[in-house]
Structure formats: C-alpha cells, structure tokens
C-alpha cells in the first residue's frame, strides 16, 4: 500500500501556527493542557477521517515512544 501520510512541509507561516499552538496552553497546568491536547487530537483526527492516514499517524507516533 502506498503511504498516504504526508510529512513534507505543508503549513503556511509555520512560526505563526507554532506560536498559536503554544499560546493555547498558556497558564494551564499539565492536566488541563493534556485535556486540551486530547480535544485537539480528536478534532484533527476526525478532520483527517481517512483510516489509512490515521493508522500511519499512530504507527509513526508509536516509533517515538521511549525505548524500554
């Protein structure tokens, strides 16, 4: 199966987006941040929708788990 996940640079004005992402969490403790992140992930996941893409994302994320 050809990969569907796109990892080349795609976001316009990345510095601006990045700053927005960080400022979203300003003043939150880590549990509040985690809660916010989880909502963001669920919303993004639904926006992507495509199961193959989502599975590739999960697999890629899995590769960043700390080694035992």
């Amino acid at each position: 199966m050809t990969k569907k996940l796109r990892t080349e640079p795609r976001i316009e004005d990345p510095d601006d987006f990045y700053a927005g992402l960080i400022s979203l969490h300003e003043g939150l403790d880590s549990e509040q941040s985690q809660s916010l992140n989880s909502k963001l992930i669920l919303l993004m996941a639904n926006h992507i929708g495509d199961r193959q893409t989502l599975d590739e994302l999960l697999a890629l994320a899995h590769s960043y788990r700390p080694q035992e």
Partner: protein
Amino acid sequence: MRGVRQTYPFVKPTELDSPERARAPVIIVGAGPVGMAMGLDLDRHGIRNIILDDDNKVSIGSRAICWSKRVLEIMDRLGCGERMLAKGVQWNLGKVFFGDEKEPVYGFNILEQEDQQFPGFVNLQQYYVEEYLIDEIDRSALTGIRWENEVVAVEQTDAGVTVTIGTPQGEYKLDCDYLIAADGSNSPVRKMLGFEFDGETFQDHFLIADIKMKAGFPTERWFWFDPPFNRGQSALLHKQPDDVWRLDFQLGWDIDREEELKLENISRRIRAMLGESLEFEFEWASIYTFQCRQMDRFVHDRIIFIGDAAHLVSPFGARGANGGLQDVDNLGWKLALVLNDNAPVGLLESYNNERVIAARENVLNSTRATDFITPKSTTSRIFRDSALELAREFEFARRFVNSGRLSVACVLDQSELNVMDSDDFGGDLVPGSPALDAPVTINGEESWFLKTIGKQFTGVYFATDGTQAPDGAAKLEADAIPVKTIVVATGDETETLVDHKGILEKRLDGEPGTYCLFRPDQHLVARWRDFDLQAVRSAVAEATMHTHTTDTT
C-alpha cells in the same frame, strides 16, 4: 431482599441403585439459561439429553436483564420468545449524561428495522427466562433437568465421556456420546480438564442493585459518566418488569466491600441518585468485578463448551447470555446431524470456528466498553472526558462514547460453511448472515417469516408463477439431509406464504426465480437467481462439511 422464588426437588436418579450404567447421547452440565436452552434445542432436533445442575433454583442475583432481538428469535423456536416479549419491557432509547449537566450529552435509538416480530431488545429478569425454559423442558419427552446433581469428575475416551455425579444420596456415573459444559464462568468441567481461560479482570467494582419503585422515569437506558451523585464514577438506570429497576454504580478499586453492601449505604447512594424522598424496596444487591475471558477452543473432542463456561464478558453491551444463546443455536443442529451419522465430526469443528470468532467479537466489544467506563490511566481518562465534552456539540465525538455496544446478531461471513455468491445480490444479507424477519401471511393469516424457517435446511423460493415450487424441490425434501422449500407466492394466493407488504423480497433481494438456502439456525448459506438442484445439494454438502477435508487438531 427478594427471597428464593421456588426450589426444584431432588429426585433420586434410578441409576443410583442400578448396577448398570446408563448412557445418553448428550449430557449437559448446568441448568443456566444456556444449558437449558441447549437441552430444548436438542429436543427440537430429536436428540435425547439430560441436564445436570448442582443447585435447586433459578438464578437469584442481579444478572441478565437485556435480551436481544436475535436471542428472542432463537427463544421463539424453543417456545419462549412470545412469553419473553409479553412479559418483558420494550425499549429503544438510550441517553448518556456527563458531569453536572442535567441534559443528556446525546441520545441514541437502537431500533434496528421495523416490520419484525421482535424489537431490538426487551428487558426481563433472568429468572423469568429460566422459568420459561423450565416450563418448556417440563413438556419435553427428550430432555429433563436433574436438580442437585453435581458433576464431580469427567473422563473422556474415544467412545464417549463418563461423568461422575454427586447427589444428596450418593454418587453415580453416566455415559454419553457428547458432554456439553454449560456450567458457567467458573466452569468446574473446564477446571477439571485444566483448560486455560485467558483474558483480563478489570480493576474496578460495580454495585448492582435491583429495586422496586413506582417512579415516573421513562423506559430508556440512562448512563451517567461522572455524575454529581457518584463523582468520578459511572452509573446506570434501566427498567425491568414489575416496577423493578436495575441500578449500577461504579465504585472504584479500593473499597470496603462490606461497608458498601450495607443497606443503609446503598440506600444513601440510591437517594442521592433518584431523590431524597424516593420510596423503594430492595430486590437484590451485589458487588461485582468484571472480567473478559475466553477459551482458545470450545470443542475438545467429545466435550464441548458453551455459554459463560466458554467465554465471559462484562455486562456492558449485554453480550453474555445473548452470546451464549447464539452458541446453542449454532451447535444444536450440527450435533444432531453428527449423532445421526448425517454429517462428519468435522461439522463440530465449524461450531468451534464460528463461535470462537463470535466470542472474540463479544470480548473485544465488552473490553473496549469497560476500558472506556473504567479508564486504565490518567491519559485514557482525559481522552474519555474530552470525547464526552465534544460529544455535546459534535456527532463524530458521540461515536467514541462507549457505554456498551449492544449485542447484535453475529454475521458468520467468514464461515467455511458458506457458499460465495456466484450471482449478483443486494439486499440486507450476505452468506453467513442470520435471516431477517418480515411480516408475511400464511394461508391468509398474518404471521412472520422467521417462524417458517429453522429446525432444518430450508430453501426460500420466490416464485415466478403463482405458487409453483421449482422442479426438483420434492427431491430435495427426500434427501438424507432434507431441504424444505418454501414458496413465496407471486400474487396474493392465500394458500401459501405471501409477502403481502413486499418487505421479504426487499430484505432478501428476492426477484422472481431467486432461491435462498438457510441453515437450520436460520443463517444464510447460499443463494441463486435460478433454482439448480445440483447447486443446492452441493451447498448442503458444503454446509455440513461433507465436502471438506478437515484437520481436527
């Protein structure tokens, strides 16, 4: 608290005094809903059997309340479906609440399809279902229950199984060709034989209380996540007949069991949930930890496991008894064919394959629901709560919310007994699906399609001309494994089955000329646009493992 409903007397078995050992084709261990249904199902297939139970009463604790449409259809063939429908409480709405908010996060409707005899679910106390089964068993010449007959040892040889039975008046032995273990989740038979029961126990406790109250709550399934009356935990409210309500409080892992079971403490919980001035009586209360487990294999030569003995699920999704009763439906006709030398032993392997897959599906669904209700980590709980929060606004997030995925009929689409379609078919079924019901008239009387199929292989033929059966239908009826043909008339000739609303034709995609072959458990085997005697015969051979070379390991 409700007392024991009735005790059933121990009757001294004649074998206790007789030096000769009696033999039955089938012995069933356990008179729970699944074991009793098994006895009746074998009765309907003409197989004599004995049901042994170590106890003398029906189940008393708070156990199954939700019975699925498929199970009602199965129970209908055992003579209990209409009683369950008449006594049971019908419901089709569920609501999910979250946190302090009085309004539900969302509601769902389980109504699957209209124009079927049985609804998606009825709620009914398990003891009623068991009593209906006992009534039917009392009428049977081929099956019967021996109360206070405890199986204490089993020994399997090539020729059969010998069972040692303990009774209040001493021990005796019985021989059988096949032993069916329906002895529940702690299955002594499974333990005697040393078989594994792999899976997990959830680190959580649930207080299940059945109370009697005259309350104006609607007949809906209400489920709360993190409500003010049970902070950080879940709760459930569901109606049963006789003004009995099922309440379920999640308690967490570290609890003082004895303290929690004190009636004043349970009352306090109930009043916090339903109102301080609530008047109610206790029916039953107990505390459970839930498990999801299953055996690797359900068939071990001449010993076959069914129901909770073979697979255990948490109640979220009502897949316990509803799963076990589908085991019964699957096994009965196969065992009957094998015992009558009409099919090779390999057919029993298909029970194993089909029901192991079905159990996996039930275990998977129940495990996921329990994980959602009892998150195993902080992160899991955070995601759960986020999904619930988003669910208020977004439909997509509601699909993540899992308070139990309710039992639906198992589609055996991976079964080796199916014949793949060679013609084009639409409609609601695929080979392996259980048939769908439809309103029909038979001899001019209103009835239901599912009442006409089952028990034996049945072909449903959509006539091209009046009520004319296809050439060769009579031959099929005379085969070693007979196939009954039912003709769906083209017009409204009253002497046969008439699809007067056209619903059956739509559900089976039955253009004129179509022939659909159903197994004795009403699952679709094969279908053709034109009747072909040889094709039907080879499909029957396929569905009874006559054409397979099997390796039974």
